[in-house]
């Protein structure tokens, strides 16, 4: 009789970080999502290059009304012309210059504001935490798009006001995430060790906590770029953002609504929005898998969160 294999309890414990068998499914997941992530990154890079070089690669002036009106695609111009005789392709390319930098700016500012507020709330606790989290709750209690519309409308229609409105509604999710992460790490042994060695709260946040919570925040930010683009072009679609004659995807789609026969007016800026939002979402998903705190724990053998 052969001896029965002995199964120890720690082989059965899925939380045990040292068991290599739990590493495998995670890595496989990462491999699956990597091609999409790379494809997304490529599309995003192409759009960013377009945004940079739009004035060079545009076949026509996106604002000049000097072509035959409502030409379908392929007849003189690649993507047709609009009701004022402007080249749709040039306007779509030019639209990247508006949407991409503004949405990146929006996300960067949201992360900065949200992370600072969340980190302060999480680290200091007490009434500071209460106050900041109640403000966060207050903002989050409103439907994002509707609140952004109200703010944008009261500020007056302009692209910068649309960014400001979007900023006011988008920082709370970062504040919440950061607060939770900081709260979790604040009482961890290495943070306490640092404090016992004389770290000030600021130094502790910067040296011991920030590097260990950056991953999840970056993932949320990368997933949020798509949302930011949608929100900004949505506000423009509603007439609360870009003003004519600026070539902006959301307002181009809005213009197309008045001219349903000319399908190319709405479809191409719509595709532009679709492609870039999907691309950034793929990048975000891949980043999430790559920076997954749990997968990280397995790979590095140490809890980072």
């Amino acid at each position: 009789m052969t001896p029965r294999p002995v199964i120890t309890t720690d082989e059965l414990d899925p939380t045990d970080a040292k068991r290599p068998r739990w590493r495998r499914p995670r890595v496989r997941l990462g491999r699956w999502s990597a091609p999409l992530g790379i494809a997304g990154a490529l599309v995003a890079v192409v759009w960013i290059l377009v945004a940079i070089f739009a004035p060079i690669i545009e076949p026509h002036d996106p604002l000049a009304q000097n072509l035959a009106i409502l030409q379908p695609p392929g007849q003189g111009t690649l993507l047709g012309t609009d009701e004022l005789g402007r080249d749709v392709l040039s306007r779509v390319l030019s639209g990247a210059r508006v949407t991409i930098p503004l949405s990146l700016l929006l996300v960067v500012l949201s992360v900065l504001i949200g992370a600072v507020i969340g980190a302060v709330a999480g680290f200091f606790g007490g009434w500071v935490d209460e106050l900041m989290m109640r403000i966060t709750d207050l903002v989050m209690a409103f439907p994002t798009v509707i609140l952004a519309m109200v703010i944008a409308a009261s500020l007056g229609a302009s692209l910068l006001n649309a960014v400001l409105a979007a900023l006011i509604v988008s920082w709370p999710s970062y504040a919440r995430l950061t607060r939770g992460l900081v709260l979790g790490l604040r009482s961890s042994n290495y943070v306490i060790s640092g404090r016992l060695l004389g770290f000030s709260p600021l130094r502790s946040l910067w040296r011991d906590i920030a590097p260990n919570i950056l991953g999840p925040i970056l993932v949320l930010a990368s997933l949020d770029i798509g949302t930011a683009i949608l929100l900004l072009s949505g506000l423009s679609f509603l007439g609360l953002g870009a003003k004519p004659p600026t070539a902006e995807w959301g307002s181009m789609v809005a213009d197309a609504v008045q001219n349903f026969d000319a399908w190319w007016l709405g479809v191409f800026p719509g595709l532009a929005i679709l492609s870039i939002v999907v691309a950034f979402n793929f990048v975000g998903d891949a980043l999430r898998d790559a920076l997954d705190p749990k997968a990280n724990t397995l790979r590095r053998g140490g809890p980072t969160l």
Partner: protein
Amino acid sequence: MTGTAPVLRADDLVVEYRGRPPLRAVDGVSLAIGPGEVVALVGESGCGKSSLARAVIGIEKRAGGTVLLGEASVPVLGLRRRTPQMTAMQMVFQDPDSSLNPRRRVGEQITDGVRAALARGLAGSDPADWLDRVGLDPETVNRYAYEFSGGQKQRIAIARALAARPRLLVADEPISALDASTQTSVAALMRSLSVEAGAGMLFISHDLSVVRRIADRTLVMYRGRIVESGHTETIWADPIHPYTRALLAAIPIPDGAGNLPVAPLEEDRATWTIELPDALERTAA
């Protein structure tokens, strides 16, 4: 303890946790640790050992009592930054995996300790030297914590604490998470390095055989109180308090006779809370 002034003195320390009724984890404990002295704190799980250690160093709120490091009162670690003076008190934790920042090089983290020593006007030191002294390759200063085993991580945590040139080292079950062969060597290392540095050490453990080997004095704790204390060998050879006896009787003896320790009975437990003044402050025989 000889005539020298203690590095640490705690009087009538009380730690309570909220609840109904509140849980009194540490119930009026006093202790003093001299320079270069290793004091062990033993007792069963939940007896308040860790609460006491954390209250001493100031990471647990105290419901009563005072703690003095030298002459200065030890504040509870809040939002305020620790004064350089208070960095003379360092701690080594039970879990080596969470003791080191996973995103910073181990050399950098030991440098934090060196800086704390410099801030108190003491001599600086090289992080690589510290790695060498705790038995690790000095070339590994640029590695990250995940590249080391649990025992090695604990050695790095010890190096970081000692690099601050502490007057008192609090070690909260520093060897419990390590395997048997590493436990003894890490415990011996902690003793030799702290004695060499002239630092007092409060060493918490439930491993009595290790305690016997490294502690000058032992405090036996049961239900938040010190039931027996004094010279380690005296307690070991002649335990007076029934709880100490039970604790020592629970150690299996590898004499080949195959006698396993017998679990204590309920009526035995009832006797463990009695106070025996003779069992306190026992001196060397």
